[in-house]
């Protein structure tokens, strides 16, 4: 960690000062300011999520109360129970898992292989392909949703989870290619080369040396792909319609605005449950996530 508090630096490193008291006051004021700002920021940014969790445990009477109660006067699991017993929530959840895992697996297999080539070779067209990949990643969904919808209808794939897996790959694959390429770039070529001097073929060296080292990269790319597919809404909205094949974002979206049937309590409880898998994954790859998320912006290579 290279960051220091500037005020603290004054105390630690600056040449001795005469006026210790002034320095102390400056130091304390600066510290207090930091904590005050941090507290305010966390309160404002964190409040909606806090409110979501708290309210999902409130009984219906309290949810529709004006003025609202802050903490639940009576904690209840009723909203969660209703969600599982009265709605198709479990079906949506399962469908989302199938689509997200499907798209992730597909882009990892195809993209992992391709990214190796993008990272290691400089034959004709390869660096051009890298640029195209990044370009695909930034393509607007609304542009390709129209033709993909036509294909889906013509191939009889309308209202299937399979169509969603394939369509999601259009975005998770460029992501996998681009990120995996930078992970492979970070693994020294010399490791493979010494394996080859010891008698490995190129493919053996790749499989036995590079791939194991790239596992952390593979894990974080999986998390990104999964997250993308888990969130994806437009393709689901256009391609699927039946209750049986709805994924979570689409299922919940159709409940919004029907608060006579689906109470806010149920909606908030479902919001909490949709967030859980994302949270679990985040905790698993916390460190790498920050690196990966900024990869596009700072392009660390």
């Amino acid at each position, binding site marked *: 960690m290279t960051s220091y508090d500037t005020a603290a630096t004054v105390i630690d490193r600056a040449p001795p000062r005469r006026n210790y008291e002034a320095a102390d006051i400056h130091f304390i004021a600066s510290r207090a300011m*930091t904590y005050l700002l941090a507290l305010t920021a966390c309160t404002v940014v964190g409040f*909606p999520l806090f409110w979501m969790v708290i309210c999902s445990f409130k009984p219906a009477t309290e*949810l529709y109360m004006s003025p609202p109660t802050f903490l639940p006067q009576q904690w209840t699991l009723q909203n969660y129970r209703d969600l599982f017993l009265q709605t198709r929530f479990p079906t949506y959840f399962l469908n989302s898992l199938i689509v997200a895992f499907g798209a992730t697996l597909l882009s990892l297999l195809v993209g992992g292989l391709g990214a190796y*080539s993008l990272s290691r070779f400089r034959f004709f067209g390869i660096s051009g392909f890298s640029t195209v990949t990044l370009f695909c990643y930034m393509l607007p969904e609304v542009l390709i949703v129209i033709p993909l919808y036509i294909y889906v209808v013509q191939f009889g794939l309308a209202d299937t989870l399979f169509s969603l897996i394939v369509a999601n790959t259009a975005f998770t694959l460029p992501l996998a290619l681009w990120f995996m390429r930078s992970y492979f770039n970070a693994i020294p070529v010399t490791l493979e080369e010494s394996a080859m001097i010891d008698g490995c073929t190129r493919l053996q060296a790749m499989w036995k040396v590079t791939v194991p080292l790239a596992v952390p990269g593979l894990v974080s790319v999986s998390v990104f792909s999964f997250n993308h597919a888990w969130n994806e*809404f437009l393709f689901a909205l256009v391609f699927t319609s039946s209750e049986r094949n709805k994924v979570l974002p689409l299922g919940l979206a159709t409940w919004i605005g029907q608060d006579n049937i689906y109470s806010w309590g149920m909606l908030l409880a479902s919001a909490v449950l*949709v967030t859980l898998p994302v949270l679990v994954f985040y905790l698993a790859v916390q460190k790498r996530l920050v690196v990966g998320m900024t990869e596009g*912006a700072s392009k660390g290579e």
Partner: protein
Amino acid sequence: MAETHTVQPGDRAIAYLTLTPSAAVLLLLVAVPTITVIGISLQDVGFGEMSGPWIGLENFAWALTSRTFWTALKNTFVWVFGSVSLEMMLGLGLALLLNRTFALRGVARAIILAPYLIPTVVAVLVWRYMFHDIVGILNYMLMSVGLISKPMVWLASTSTAMLSVIIVGVWKFFPFVVIALLGILQSIPQEQYEAAEIDGASAFQQFWRITLPHILPVFLLTALLRTIWTFHKFEIIYLLTGGGPLDSTTTLPILVYIKGFADFELGRAAAIALITFFILVVLLAVYFGFMKRAEARQ
């Protein structure tokens, strides 16, 4: 650039073979659809049809002369400019804050990052509940401190809908800016600040002369990236307002969806989608140009 192998026999075959599946998938899912969408934009596709007679550029002419399109274009710029400028300001402020050392900084960082990680539909649900005119906490809070005298209908009024959508968008996406800037802030050599301190530079001078020049390239790149992404955001607006009330939050992506899948006029939808894409290509060209320059400097 990363180091590459010394070329060996068979490498060329391996390079192209491992790339083939990716190339095939991208061709089928991105390139072919892009050509198809150009084709559709040149056809008069009737309600619920998949194709129709060729009509040249008529769909584009229709778009460029329709009021709906220009309203959507204007809304898109308000949405992009409003969101990105607020995200950048907030992101910079909080990155500077999180760059200082204080107890529980890890916790603060996790809380500030959280909105970026939650699914969009979750963000929308929570905010719709908070925005609710009768049971929403927002109206209650604003009324109890006296900022408003009667409950506001945030999402259902033409004057506040865009503002509300921007608030939710900024809350959801500004953490990306925080992370991007935090990375670069932590790479500034600490000695520069120490030297400035000895020379008697004020905190503001230090920010202006050391911090800002150092982070500027990444700051601009992040702003550009956020502009591109915000430009074609669909679901957050669609789920909050559906583009309403009365077109007041209909951006170009929303208009494409409405034309294509509510009015079922695929030809016109394709034309608008392509115009959207052209604007985006200009932004992307700037982005790639910028990145090339940044790369050359390294």
